[in-house]
Structures are given as C-alpha cells and as structure tokens.
C-alpha cells in the first residue's frame, strides 16, 4: 500500500522507506508528505522541491546537492517540535510534524529553554570501528567473532553505509548486522557520529537518540548522548565524499553529486529529476547513471572528461545511454533550477569543440572522491596526495588507527571487504573472516580535473565557477586571492572564506586546493589542505554540556547542618563549591539589620555558627613537628600537646597562601585547619613537599575535613552555655585557657572543644563527628535559646574578625601580600634557619618600606560604609589620570560595637601613615578617611577570657 500522493518524484516501489508509515511535514510553509525512512531532503525531492535556500553572499538559489552529512546547501532551520538552527536536510530523519524552513545562511536560536535531556557515557573497547559500510562491517565482524570488545558506530539509522545506496550484498549486510547486534561484547551505535579523535585513542561521538521521534520523543531519555570512547585500536571505515568540479553555473538547483542521486533513487526510491546529464571524471558516475536509468530517469548523456573512458562507458552505451568522451560541461541555464546543460569538447584543460546544449532538469556531477580522513588527521595522521587516485590518502599515524575501504582510497567493494577484515585481524591478532565472493569491475583511471574553462559566450569570467557553494566562493575569488600575493591554502581560505562554512569544506576543500594549484601552476601535493579540526560534523552545545547543568553544573558541597540552616531562613553564600549561611534574616529583616543583630548577639550574649567547612588535616608521624616547621612561617615544634597555635603558610615566593590553627594532639600528631576555599590546595601542597622534597620525613597526612563538624560558639555567655552542656569539662579560664583544646562530651556527644576565637570574644569551637552535628546543634539551640543564642553567618563572622583586625586570606590578601605586609611579623619565625618563603622575604622588594600594609580605615563620617574594592588616593582633589593610587579597601562593614562604618585596606606604607587622611573616590566624590590601627575593637584583648 503506497501513499505517494503529492510525491511526484517518488518511485512506485523499492527503496528502504516504510511506505506504510506516511509522515506529514512542512517546509517553508507548504505541506508535504514523506515516509518513515526518508530524510528531510529525500522527502523534499520526492515532493519536487530541489531549491532549498539562497546563498549566503550572493543570494543565488541553491538546491540539494548531496545525500549525507557533506551537504553544503540544504542547511535548514527546524521550527517544530523545537527550534534548532542549521541542520542539514540530508541528515534529518523525517518525522511526523516536522516543520522546517530554508535559511539565507544563518540560523536562529530558540527564545525559550530547551526542555530536552542530554547525557554522556564512557565506553572502552579493543576495537572501535567508525563507519558501518562494507569495510567497517567486515572489520567489526572479524573482531567480534574473535571475542574482542567492539564498538561499531555509524551516523546512519541503519547499518550498511554505501551498501544502502547500492544493490549489492543485501543479505550479507543484514546478517552481519544481526550478528553484531547479538554479540555480547559488541556495542552497535546507530545514529552516532564519531566527531573527534584525540590523543591516546580517545574519541568523541554523538548519538542522536530521539530526534527522529519528533514530538513523541520520551522525556526521560536523553535526546543526544556524547560517547567518550577509549579504544585500543581504531579502524576508520568512514568512506569517501564525492566532489564536484568548477564549471560555469555549477551551483544551480538541479546540479547534484552523482552518487547522491543514486542514493536517492536506490535507498529512498526518489528520482531527483526527469532528464539528466551526467558529468564525470571517473568511473563511479556510470553506476549512478545506470541505476537512475533503471529507475526510469532519462539520461541525456554521460559527459566524460576522459578521452577513453573504458569498460563502464561501454556498459552505459549498451544500456542506450549516449557517452561523450573527451567532453565537459561548460555551462547551465535556468532561473531557479537547471533547464539545460551546455557541453563542449574538452582535453587537457582546454575546450576543443563548440558547445552543444542538452535539455535537462538534472546535472549529475562527479569530480572524484575524497576519502573521509578528518578523524585520521585529527588523530595526528599524515595525509599524502595520491596523484593516481586524485585524492588525499592516509600516510601513517603515531596512534593505533588505520583507515580502510574508500577512506583509504580503496574503491571497489571486494577490496573494501578484504581490507576491513584484514585490518581488524591485524589490530587484535585474530583471523580474517570468510567474505562473500565479490569481483570488482575492472576500472579505468580517473583524471584530475578541477576547473573547466568557461566559454566566451558566458562572459562572466570565473564568477559562476563555484568552489565553495556554501560560502559563495568562486574560481574568480581564488584568482583574486592568489593575485594579491597569497600562496598558502590557509591564507586563501581566510581571504575567500572557502571551507569555513557549516560543511567545513567537505565537498569543497580538495577542490579549493586543486583550483588554487591550477591557478598558481603548483602541484596540489605541495599546497596541501587546511587542517582538519574537530568536530567532524556540528555538535550541539547542549549535548556537550550533558547533565552538567543547573544544580549539577558543579558539585554543591554542604555541611551536615545544611538542612537546619535552610529551614531557618539562611541566605547562602557560595564559597568555592560550598554553600555557607551568609546571614539569617528574620521576619523580613534587611541584610544589614540581620548582621547587626547577629553581631550584637556575639558581642553581648552568645551566638553560634557552622564552621564545618574549614579544612582539617591530620598530620601524624615522628617528624610531624619538623614538617610543620618547614611549611608554616612560625614555629610549631614548640607547641605543647593540648595547645593550639595560629599559623600562616607562604608559597616559596613569600606571599601568604593560607592560614589557620594547628592543634597538637600528641607528640607525633597535629590537627591543622585551613581556610574553607584552600582545603584541597593546602593538602596537595603539603603532600607535594612531603613526597617530592622530603620523602625522608616520617609523616602521614590525612584529610579529616568532613570527619569533624565544627560549631563555633562565641560571646560572653558562651562559657555558661557550654558549661551547662559539658558537665565534665572544667571551663574556667585557668583550667581551660585560651588556645587550648579538651576532649569531652557536649550534650552527651563526644567532642573536642577548642578555645579559639575569631571574634575577640570568649569563644569555643566544638568539633564532633559529622553524623552527630545535628544533634549537637539542636542541643545547643535548645539550651541556648534562653540565653538568646543566635545563629550567625559568614557576614557576621567577617564583621567580628574585621573589628579585631584579623585578615581573611583571599579577601584582605591577593597573592601579592606577605605576612609582614599584614602586620604579622610576629607570626614569622626569626629563629628557624628556613621556612617556606623565608628567602623571598629577604629580597629587597619584600623589604621596601613603601609596601602595602594592612591598616584600619575610618571614614570621617561614621555613617559611611565604603564599598569594598574602593581605591585610595592622597589629595582631596583628583588630578587628571593616571591618578596615583595608594591602596584599596579590602573589607568594609558597619560595626554595631563601634557604632560606625569602618574598613580594612592595603595602603602603601600604611603603618607609617597612622592618623593620615586619605580619600576614597566613590561615585564621583572623594570620601575622606583616616588611617588607623587595624585592631579597632578591644585592642587590649580584654574580652577573650570572658
């Protein structure tokens, strides 16, 4: 039962289409029908539509030119079911409800989010075979029968490659396909384009999983999937692309590659015209002509540039087709479609007879075949121009990759099959498999013809001898480029834009080189081609992004208390990958009000925060103290067990890298803390020195960042709260002094309590096993509420520490700041013979008195809070730029305790400027500020013992 109404060019029978599944679609606002198994291009041709667009630069009509991913012209906008720009009609499988539109060279993005899913998978194999044509199938089957792990990938929805467009071996193709599908260690990837070949045989492929289902695509399946394939061996059975040649008017709709026309007729049961002229430089177009003639198309003539075409020409003549040896096409006519083809005698680059005109609506062209070697070249393979074959062929690759079949310049089915099985057998050390006997036709050599001269009658010079159809590049353009002095194909490409379009020169690249060589009188082998770059065919951004989007774009790291923070209205701050509570607004409070309230609680009552994100490193071993002495600027070996010391680490360049506390747990064991953002970097840094420079030190480093959750408890009432929950702990200042730690139980939970303060207040850090953190927090909250216990976030923490002049690494430092710059000379050992950064601290540059120092800055107007990042200048009036800058504000807050705005900043020679007035340019005004000590709150340190 066939439904061919409205498909005037559909053959009544044959093809691989499913005539029982008619599909409706729209193109440029007109309704059409096709069948399951069609591409958009074959369905358009069935409907009589050749012209599918307008060219990008000259606005000339253009039509379907090829039948595969090399198509230069029919590049369309998909409108329904979801807008997608620039898909080749020759690769879009037809589905019901497809709406597409022709484009003047430029696509359009959707204005709404893409609802589809995308994903990726890793795969490994002994042998990856790219391309499921005859050579690829033979290779895959060979490896599969030997039990190897095989991946066979092909861009088409069905296996067979070139066999799908011919009439050979239909049974074998089907049987091998079934065998491979059933083999346990074989993965057959249909609709999958291998688009990148990287180092160490790492290949990328994209599988189009649900596109062909249109609106019926299941939402839970990824629409496209990236395969990341690591292959021990790769066989490229990627086939060959037919190329055109440059003659006048070679761009009109109705001009089509001969092999493509054959594909339409045999595979899709569509004839792309009624009466065709065939122009060829080689044998292959004869098979197309014969198949098309058998399909009922009238072949007006086969125009062969060769003077003596050989046996194929005889077969054509026997079939009643006129063959014109030693001829070429010199022009075409027609407004929007070919209506006639002009032919003249041709020999060795010259026209040898007057023109003769053929009425035709189709001109089939074959200028030879280019092995598809994009992947081979990407893999680092060399290419060599083979003069006999008239194409680039593989010439060796460092990687375990081999091209077979027509990708290797081997044209002839029998030879392709043999090459496929032999290559696979070599790759995995197996035996070749028996193959169907197939005798290749004797062939006659092709001749290289890239340009056919125009006739004087055309009078358009070389301006319609198109080389790159998609970029509208002509022989005249190339002529002009070479005339401008350009001699490299890369320059020609850039001058003319040839080869840079959507098809990346698949049909035009070699032709461009050939024409350029012709123009320059050079050999094409010397000129070469431009470099092939991934991807082989365009790949959607979304496919490459996969599922690394939205919340999964980058891991969200959370502490065990995250749910509590969220439930209590915390606003979160991203700190590296961590989510940290920034502040906890209550009842519509502003950020400022919330922070002031939290600060007051910490200074006047008691407040607590989740400090679990701090990095924690267990340092163990007899040489642990020696190790820490080398990395920290201060002395750690003198620390007593049970005590804690603040430490700073520098890089070898002397700049502050990180800071934190170090607790001595035992003679041979320390617990070092790092800043939240640097936890991994500090551990890596320590390991690097330990392993690469000091392997003799008996020290082991273990990250315990998540082993311990940390709750900071701060404020004058913190001791009271802690004492109530830790009855076994002697909390008085004498028994539990500042910078000591104790193991005890808090609320019945085993805990290590440290008397550390980052606020200047009496404060504790309670460390418990991560699993127990919610129980600890809940217990603290319950017991503390009567005392006014208030949760606080990172902003309040920053205000409190800034009031005390404690710097934040990464905020008050920027990689150009030494400990001395921070006013922390006291943390830099004078006694140690060396520590990381010491030699750099001795450089003149590090000792300049005018280095930038961390200082306090008080706006004259206490109501002012300067923006962080504000620069500082000397005078009350700005001179013309460049204005010398003295430093900048690193931290700036409103202080509840000080009742004013204040800031920290790095100021040139700042410690020598105490009391000096500087100016901060803010919003066009100069705000006066006074340089002060960075310690603005409780400079005597009276509060830390409560």
């Amino acid at each position, binding site marked *: 039962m066939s439904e061919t109404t409205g498909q005037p060019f559909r053959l009544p029978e044959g093809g691989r289409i499913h005539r029982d599944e008619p599909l409706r679609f729209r193109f440029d606002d007109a309704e059409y029908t096709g069948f399951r198994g069609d591409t958009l291009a074959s369905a358009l041709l069935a409907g009589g539509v050749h012209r599918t667009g307008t060219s990008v630069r000259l606005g000339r009509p253009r039509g379907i030119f090829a039948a595969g991913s090399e198509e230069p012209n029919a590049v369309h906008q998909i409108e329904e079911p979801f807008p997608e720009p620039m898909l080749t009609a020759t690769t879009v499988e037809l589905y019901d409800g497809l709406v597409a539109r022709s484009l003047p060279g430029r696509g359009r993005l959707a204005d709404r989010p893409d609802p589809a899913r995308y994903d990726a998978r890793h795969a490994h194999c002994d042998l990856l075979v790219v391309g499921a044509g005859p050579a690829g199938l033979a290779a895959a089957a060979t490896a599969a029968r030997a039990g190897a792990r095989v991946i066979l990938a092909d861009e088409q929805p069905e296996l067979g490659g070139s066999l799908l467009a011919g009439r050979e071996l239909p049974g074998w193709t089907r049987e091998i396909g079934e065998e491979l599908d059933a083999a346990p260690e074989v993965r057959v990837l249909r609709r999958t384009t291998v688009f990148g070949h*990287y*180092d160490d*045989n790492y290949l990328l492929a994209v599988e189009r999983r649900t596109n062909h289902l249109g609106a019926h695509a299941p939402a839970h399946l990824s629409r496209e999937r990236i395969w*990341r394939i690591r292959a021990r061996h790769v066989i490229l059975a990627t086939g060959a692309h037919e190329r055109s040649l440059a003659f006048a008017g070679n761009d009109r709709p109705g001009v089509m590659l001969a092999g493509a026309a054959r594909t339409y007729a045999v595979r899709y049961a569509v004839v792309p015209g009624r009466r065709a002229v065939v122009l060829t430089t080689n044998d292959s177009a004869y098979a197309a002509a014969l198949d098309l003639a058998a399909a009922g198309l009238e072949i007006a003539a086969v125009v062969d540039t060769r003077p003596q075409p050989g046996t194929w020409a005889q077969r054509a003549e026997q079939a009643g087709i006129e063959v014109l040896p030693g001829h070429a096409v010199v022009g075409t006519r027609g407004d929007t479609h070919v209506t006639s083809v002009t032919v003249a005698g041709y020999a060795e680059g010259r026209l040898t007879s007057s023109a003769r005109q053929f009425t035709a609506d189709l001109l089939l062209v074959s200028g030879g075949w280019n092995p598809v070697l994009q992947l081979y070249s990407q893999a680092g393979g060399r290419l060599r121009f083979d003069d006999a074959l008239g194409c680039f062929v593989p010439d060796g690759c460092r990687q375990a990759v081999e091209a077979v079949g027509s990708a290797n310049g081997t044209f002839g089915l029998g030879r392709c099959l043999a090459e496929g099985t032999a290559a696979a057998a070599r790759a995995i050390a197996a035996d070749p498999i028996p193959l169907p006997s197939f005798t290749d036709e004797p062939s006659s050599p092709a001749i290289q013809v890239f340009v056919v001269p125009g006739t004087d009658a055309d009078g358009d010079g070389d301006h319609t001898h198109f080389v790159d159809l998609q970029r509208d590049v002509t022989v005249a353009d190339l002529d002009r480029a070479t005339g401008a002095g350009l001699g490299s194909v890369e320059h020609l490409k850039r001058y003319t834009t040839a080869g840079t379009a959507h098809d990346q020169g698949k049909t035009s690249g070699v032709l461009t080189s050939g024409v350029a060589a012709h123009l320059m009188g050079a050999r094409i082998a010397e000129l070469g081609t431009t470099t092939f770059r991934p991807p082989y065919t365009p790949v959607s951004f979304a496919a490459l992004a996969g599922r690394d989007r939205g919340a999964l774009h980058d891991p969200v790291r959370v502490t065990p208390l995250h749910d509590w923070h969220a439930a209590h209205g915390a606003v979160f701050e991203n700190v590296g990958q961590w989510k940290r509570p920034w502040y906890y607004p209550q009842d519509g409070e502003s950020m400022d009000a919330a922070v002031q309230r939290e600060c007051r609680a910490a200074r006047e009552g008691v407040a607590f925060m989740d400090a679990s994100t701090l990095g924690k490193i267990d340092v163990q071993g007899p040489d642990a103290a020696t190790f820490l002495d080398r990395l920290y600027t201060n002395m750690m070996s003198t620390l007593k067990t049970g005590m804690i010391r603040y430490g700073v680490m520098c890089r070898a360049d002397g700049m502050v890298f990180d800071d934190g506390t170090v607790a001595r747990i035992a003679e041979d064991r320390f617990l070092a803390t790092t800043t939240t953002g640097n936890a991994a970097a500090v551990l*890596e840094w320590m390991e690097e020195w330990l392993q*690469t420079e000091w392997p003799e030190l008996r020290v082991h480093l273990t990250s315990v960042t998540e082993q311990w959750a940390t709750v900071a408890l701060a404020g004058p009432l913190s001791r009271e709260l802690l004492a109530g929950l830790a009855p076994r702990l002697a909390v008085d200042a004498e028994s539990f002094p500042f910078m000591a730690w104790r193991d005890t139980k808090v609320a019945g939970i085993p805990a290590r309590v440290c008397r550390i303060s980052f606020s200047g207040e009496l404060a504790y850090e309670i460390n418990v096993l991560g699993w127990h953190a919610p129980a600890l927090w809940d217990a603290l909250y319950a017991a503390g509420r009567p005392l006014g216990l208030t949760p606080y976030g990172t902003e309040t923490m920053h205000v409190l520490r800034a009031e005390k002049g404690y710097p934040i690494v990464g905020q008050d430092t920027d990689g150009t700041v030494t400990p001395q710059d921070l006013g922390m000379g006291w943390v830099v050992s004078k006694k140690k*013979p*060396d520590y990381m950064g010491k*030699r750099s601290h001795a450089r003149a540059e590090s000792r300049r008195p005018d280095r930038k120092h961390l200082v306090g800055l008080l706006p004259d107007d206490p109501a002012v809070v300067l923006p962080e990042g504000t620069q500082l200048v000397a005078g009350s009036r700005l001179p013309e730029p460049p204005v010398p800058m003295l430093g900048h504000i690193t931290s700036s807050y409103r202080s509840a305790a000080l009742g004013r705005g204040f800031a920290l900043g790095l100021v040139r020679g700042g410690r020598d400027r105490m009391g000096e007035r500087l100016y901060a340019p803010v919003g066009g005004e100069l705000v006066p500020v006074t340089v002060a000590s960075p310690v603005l709150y409780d400079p005597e340190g009276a509060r830390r013992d409560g």
Partner: protein
Amino acid sequence: MLLIPCPWCGPRDEAEYTYGGQAHVPYPQDPASLPDEEWGRYLFHRANPKGPHAERWCHTAGCRRWFNAVRDTATNQLLAVYRAGEPRLAGGEANGRDLFA
C-alpha cells in the same frame, strides 16, 4: 584527554591528575645563601622544551602519589613514567613497565 599511566594505578584519564611542571628541580640546599638571581631562577624558571620533557604529575583523584614522566611536548606522547625517587629517565629506554598495560 591524555591517558596517563600512573606508576601505581595504571593508565587513567588526564582529568584524575594534577600537572606539576618540570621534574628534578630540587629545593635549594641553603636558600639563604643564594643570590637573588639564583633564587629568582628557582622560583620562576622552569624548562619549557619542545620535545621530551621530564615533568611531574600527581594522581590527585587516585592514589595521591606524585611521580615523574617524560612526555614529548611536541606530540603529547608519554615516553616513560617512574616513581618519585626512582632514577631519572630520558624516555625511550626500557623502564621495565609497559606504559599502557
């Protein structure tokens, strides 16, 4: 995505590793005695050859071991890997370890 053979874990994707630059650049014996120029050289100058390059890698997402490799920077080909503390290799010589076994 290079496939880098960790001397302990075997071949793993490049993404599991941290690159550590030139290998065999020891921390100076006595930095305090170095003139500024030599200290500056230690801090900032690392070999950057086009060709075989002895360099350090750390299998950060794996066994966390630092090791050395000889890689041809003109091709990215790994020529040899060896554990920290093992004698320096130039690449090309048999190091008793099949890189991608």
